[in-house]
């Protein structure tokens, strides 16, 4: 199936139809109300002109006309929705995985990224997965939104018509980091995209700083900043080697953030919770020893 319109067009058409009808109705109602209040004000009209209290034809009229109008609105709404649900045949597949509070996009060739890189002019189908709670994939520019639900696979499709960077929000409330679960859709020209997808610049990055790449991939940066500002968790800046106060077994103790402490903080965050922060960091037990060391090495570099 080939959609006749982009998702943006589909939604906007319905929107303008409904908004148009809405505005006409609203204006009509407002005008009538203000006119009546002015014309029949008790100063001008000390006694009511009539005591009429029913008229069957009027009732029928103002039942039937709104009925027709709402059916029209329903129809446009539904038509537009169908466009959102018809995936073009040539759509490219990308897998999105949402967790508290970061996105990870996986391409068919195994490449992963924290931003959603897409080629301009080609529809993409994004398959949505959630690892913990509900999140929602929302790109206002393309008018698409769909929840990611644990245990269920949802999807959206859209097509970027112009190159550029578009906001991607998490629209389903998911806890303290909900509003920082924000990234972008990077629409690149076909050639640039191809270069990025098969490119090696990321690999260069990898050798340059495996730790930083991991931090982005694992979503650490959703909760921790590297510039000293407070997000969900404490900033990584200057963390290594400093002392922090943590709650361990209900007791407050002061510890030095050495490599062993950092490893514990990542593997079992609930055991030692930094005072002043909620105990919401998930345990990262799946990290290999090498990755863990890479992360800690990178943390150390952030002096």
């Amino acid at each position, binding site marked *: 199936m080939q959609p006749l319109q982009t998702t943006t067009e*589909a*939604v906007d058409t*319905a*929107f303008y139809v409904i908004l148009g009808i*809405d505005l006409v*109705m*609203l204006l009509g*109602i*407002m005008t009538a*109300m203000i006119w*009546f*209040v002015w014309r029949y*004000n*008790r100063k001008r009209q000390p*006694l*009511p*002109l*009539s*005591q009429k*209290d*029913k*008229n069957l034809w009027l*009732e029928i009229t*103002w*039942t039937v006309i*709104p009925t027709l109008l*709402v059916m029209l609105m*329903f129809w446009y*709404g*539904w*038509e*537009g*929705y*169908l*466009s959102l*649900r018809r995936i073009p045949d040539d759509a490219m597949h990308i897998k999105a995985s949402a967790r508290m509070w970061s996105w990870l996009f996986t391409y068919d060739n195994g490449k992963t990224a924290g931003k959603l890189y897409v080629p301009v002019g080609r529809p993409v189908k994004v398959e949505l997965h959630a690892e*913990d*709670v*509900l999140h929602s994939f*929302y790109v206002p*520019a393309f*008018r*698409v*939104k*769909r*929840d990611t639900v*644990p245990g*269920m696979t949802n999807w959206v499709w859209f097509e970027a018509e112009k190159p550029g960077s578009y*906001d991607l929000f998490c*629209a*389903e*409330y*998911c*806890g*303290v980091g*909900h*509003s*920082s679960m*924000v990234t972008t859709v990077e629409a690149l020209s076909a050639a640039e995209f191809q270069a990025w997808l098969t490119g090696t610049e990321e690999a260069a990055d990898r050798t340059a700083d495996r730790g930083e790449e991991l931090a982005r991939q694992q979503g650490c940066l959703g909760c921790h900043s590297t510039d000293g500002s*407070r997000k969900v968790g404490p900033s990584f800046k200057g963390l290594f080697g400093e002392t922090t106060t943590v709650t361990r077994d209900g007791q407050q103790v002061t510890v030095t953030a050495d490599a062993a402490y950092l490893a514990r903080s990542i593997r079992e965050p609930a055991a030692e919770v930094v005072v002043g922060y909620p105990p919401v960091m998930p345990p990262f037990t799946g990290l290999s020893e090498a990755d863990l060391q890479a992360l800690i090495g990178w943390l150390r570099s952030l002096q």
Partner: protein
Amino acid sequence: MTSAAPASSETSRGFLGEARYPGIFGWIFSTDHKRIGLLYLWCIIAFFCIGATLGVLIRLELWAPGRTIMDAQTYNAVFTLHGVIMIFLFIIPGIPAAFGNLIMPIQLGARDVAFPRLNLLSWWLYIGGAILAVIALFTGGGPPDTGWTFYVPFSTHTTTNVTLATVAVFTIGFSSILTGINFVTTIHRLRAEGMTWTRIPLFTWSLYATAWIQVLATPVLGITVALIFAERVIGTGLFDPAQGGDPIMFQHLFWIYSHPAVYIMVLPGMGVVSDIIPVFARKPAFGYKAIVVSSLAIAFAGSLVWAHHMYTSGMSDLAVMVFSFLTFIVAIPSAVKVFNWLATLYQGSILLDPPLLFALSFILLFTIGGLSGLVVGAAATNIHVHDTHFVVGHFHFTMFGGTGMAFFAALHYWLPKIYGRMYDKAVATVAWGVIFVGFCILYLSMKIVGIMGMPRRYWDYVPEFTGLNQLATAGSWILAVGLVLMFVNLIRGVLYGAPVGANPWGGATLEWQVPSPPPTENFEADPVVTHGPYDFKKAGIL
């Protein structure tokens, strides 16, 4: 509440002066429907002020991106609390429990409701639930941070004290159910002689429709929060995908109650407006039967549309179609009401006193809210605006602009009846104007920023949204000024206002035939009703 009133010699203090027990006990153990109604009224106003203050804090935090006055966790607790207080402690009991109790039995010509002691129990449950909710803030893992919708799996995972909060919601729901049972029975059984079904005032009719929703929908909320409780406490993961459950089923159950609940909120407000307009236009309610039928139709059809909150959840496309269609059907009876109200104004003799001003702003603001409801009700547009500030704008327009305004209208209309004193009408009019302007600035900006794509429940936002958020915040201050002015004026009126007679507005329903304040058993002799509720000629007003 009453001790401060300097009892003037000529006005009898009616039920306010006749307590069965001394002091506070004369209130909290009273089974008189008017005393219970007043207990509700003042508690509800108090909760409104707390909830509204939290609303202002939300707006302050949203003044600028990033942290302004509180951190993200606090923000989440604040909007959760704001939503829970406004929904469960202010707006759902708002008009039915306060004004329904105060006025409805008198409108029917009854001495009390059908089950007065059950009525008192409802109030106790309401307060008990509220106390539990307060305790939940300071115990366990701290104030709940789930939003008022308690979506799983977040609500079953979060470390905050959601467990106790569900108990609180269950208790308050129970209170609402008992009020509903009481009202349905009262309206069926305790009508005075001559009070036929077509002579029941529209306010009472709207309570009748509401009470049925309270009885039939609230238990579903009860079981829903009970299931969260069970999942948190004993691990019965009926919604937990790891145990074969389906998180989306939670949303179904939640909205099976919570959508009908929005009509629990708005129907009584529509009833208030339907009662006020005829009085101030000196014309019978146009299309009385159409309004009654549309109330019942809203109550029924409103029970069939719940999944319009779930278009993006991953439910089936067929369900999106069915529920979107049904959603549009509910708009029709609302439209019928609006047009009948306008027709009542036509060729009347209109007095723009404060109750009517608030009633008219109900019509206007509810219409804007309802029309934006059509934008969110249509499948395609919903996808874009779902869970954005557009929806926040929609529901503040319907809840605050609708029910809230109707509540204020009811305050200005019936407080003189209850206390026998009149507030300053000029100040009330000014307050109305300030509220109206502040309201529109606040919530229209929210709608626009929502269309631009700002998600709701966002503590932080991208810089493009700053301007409109600041406009909204500024609007909230104007609104605050208006509200404070209004409440101060009302309280001054209650305490020191000039005494009013039985019928200050020229109403034809029964409550205007008893003294202000009404005596304990309302009527000296059982009344006999001889004309319709808006028959101003027969009532001798015209």
